[in-house]
């Protein structure tokens, strides 16, 4: 009986919260570079940034899913979900910081500030992606080779 209740809670969390958070995260991951960052570079003007707030909200949802045993069932049922959420968060975090750097630089309408903002943003993205790659090489998110799902 308690298993059934736990399954219902897990399903409600997955279909009511987690899947929307994932869709929203993917949407944000597309919109930040192709709308916000490209928009600022094309127009030459800054805009308000919300990427880090999205990161916070998604991070809370994903971490709750991992930390609460009942909600964690989603990660067992869908083996790709845990690596997917982790990488989604990492990518979103990197892009949100990049967006913030660009918005700061473009808040002053001068060529020097614009060029500097683009350079700093590019360095940040490359450095963070290298760090992410090194981290994932050392601690791969693959599970199927050595672990069994519950």
């Amino acid at each position, binding site marked *: 009986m308690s298993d059934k209740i736990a399954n219902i809670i897990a399903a409600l969390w997955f279909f009511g919260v987690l899947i929307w958070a994932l869709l929203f995260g993917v949407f944000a991951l597309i919109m930040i570079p192709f709308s916000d960052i490209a928009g600022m570079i094309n127009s030459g003007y800054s805009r308000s940034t919300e990427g880090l707030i999205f990161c916070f909200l998604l991070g809370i949802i*994903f971490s709750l899913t991992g*930390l609460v045993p009942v909600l964690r069932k989603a990660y067992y049922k869908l083996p790709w979900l845990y690596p997917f959420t982790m990488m989604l968060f990492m990518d979103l975090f990197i892009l949100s910081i990049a967006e913030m750097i660009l918005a700061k630089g473009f*808040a*002053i309408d001068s060529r020097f500030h614009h060029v500097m903002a683009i350079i700093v943003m590019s360095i940040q993205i490359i450095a963070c992606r290298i760090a992410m790659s090194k981290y994932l090489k050392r601690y791969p998110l693959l599970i199927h080779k050595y672990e069994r799902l519950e």
Partner: protein
Amino acid sequence: MGNNEFRNDSPVTSKNNMEYIPDIQQDISPHRAKNTPPFTQRIKKGSGILLLASIMALAIGMMCHTGTSVNTSDDAQSAIETHVSTTLPIGARLLEKDDHYVGGDMTITHTSPEKKTKMYIWDYAAEDGDYVQVYIDGKPLGSPFMIKNKPEVFNVPATGEVQVVGTRDGGGGITYAVRYELNHETYFNGMEQGGNNVYTLVRE
């Protein structure tokens, strides 16, 4: 998530050529927490790190966030009507959205003996990407910049002409407030893109 979780067990192929995942019990070493599968341990650890990263994202976001909430006090309501206030704090936000307000030039008479004074300038409505440039007696004081709810501070002469030019309208007109330290008065002004307001500072 550590290296010690990796084993040399290679995946075994079953009869139907599907990849077989070794039994979890075989993968638990005596040094591990009691009966906690490594996958679970890794999720817990990863989620803990994710939680910390989320809090860090919130902290960075809060530090860089310049938006403020709308002031709904009686003083703010009065300032919306008169466009002047001596009581509202620096950085007060009066409106949720820009209201296409077009103000005018002002002459500010004061008795301050100081040669210079601080001028605060901010967006008193939405942070929608309005840009202005400040000129002192016809000379630009830096590049155009985006006005936000958080005030920018300039040192300007206590006498002379301070011109605020609207270089870009992010939507709804350029709404901005200026406050001079020499008389502690805030002027809630506005203009269209390309327009300007001149503040003539005169010592009595």
